């Protein structure tokens, strides 16, 4: 394998990142990239013309605002820190399992509080008979 240390890859947000699927290390889908939060060098507000970097991926319930307009306030959008991103290819792959992400708490809550109470709801179909 060639040493590509220090190399940088140019991507366009809309072309290569937005709406791409976000996967956890096991290949479980976490969501889709709805937006990217930018931050200044010290993690503060971005200033025009000053150095800025991607701070987090925003995943969340944006379907309603896409249909009806308006926008979800940033504070209501679940964030995944960019530091947790491992690979960028056709999908964005994370380095942390989805169980540890706040972004999928709704799914976790439904699984633990609702599905688990249905008889047979704790059975893992993928674990075999």
């Amino acid at each position, binding site marked *: 394998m060639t040493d590509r240390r220090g190399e*940088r890859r140019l991507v366009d947000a809309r072309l*290569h990142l937005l709406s791409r699927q976000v996967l956890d290390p096991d290949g479980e889908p976490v969501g889709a990239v709805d937006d*990217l*939060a930018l931050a200044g060098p010290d993690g503060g507000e971005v200033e025009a013309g000053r150095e800025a970097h991607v701070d987090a991926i925003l995943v969340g319930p944006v379907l309603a605002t896409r249909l009806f307009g308006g926008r979800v306030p*940033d504070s209501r959008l679940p964030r995944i820190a960019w530091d947790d991103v491992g*690979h960028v290819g056709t999908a964005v792959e994370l380095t942390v399992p989805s169980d540890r992400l706040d972004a999928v708490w709704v799914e976790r809550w439904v699984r633990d509080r609702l599905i688990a109470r249905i008889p047979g709801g704790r059975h893992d179909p993928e674990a075999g008979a």
Partner: protein
Amino acid sequence: MNVGDLLDARVLGPDGAPLGVVVDVRLSLEVVDEAEGGPGAGEDREEAEHDAPLSAQARRDAVGGARLVGLLVGPRGAGSFHGYERTGIRSPWPIPQLVRRRHRGTFLVRWEDVAAVETGTAVGDDGARRVRLARGYTQLPAELPSASG
């Protein structure tokens, strides 16, 4: 500020002349060495050799930080998300040729050349964001290097 705030914002020159809209935001990803190999990496390779899905040919990098490089400014907004004017793709004829023609004049402006990002909050304004470029900004070619797929 989010990338979504910048997309589709109107771009004004230093003198206030309209130049177009932000069609995309260019980022520079730090490619890190993958010597240790992620848990999923080996698995994917194996699968790729097996039946070689199309996605195996796509580039997949272990990445570090993502820096904001600049904004792509196009004379028209709609349709640019195909990115034909930024890549060398020529088929299926005549789609890339037509889209490229529609978006000729798209240029890259470095983030350092952006003087201000304003939100239109004045009365009678439609609330759209505006990006004002600094005096002496340079228009760079919009093409992506062919290596990134």
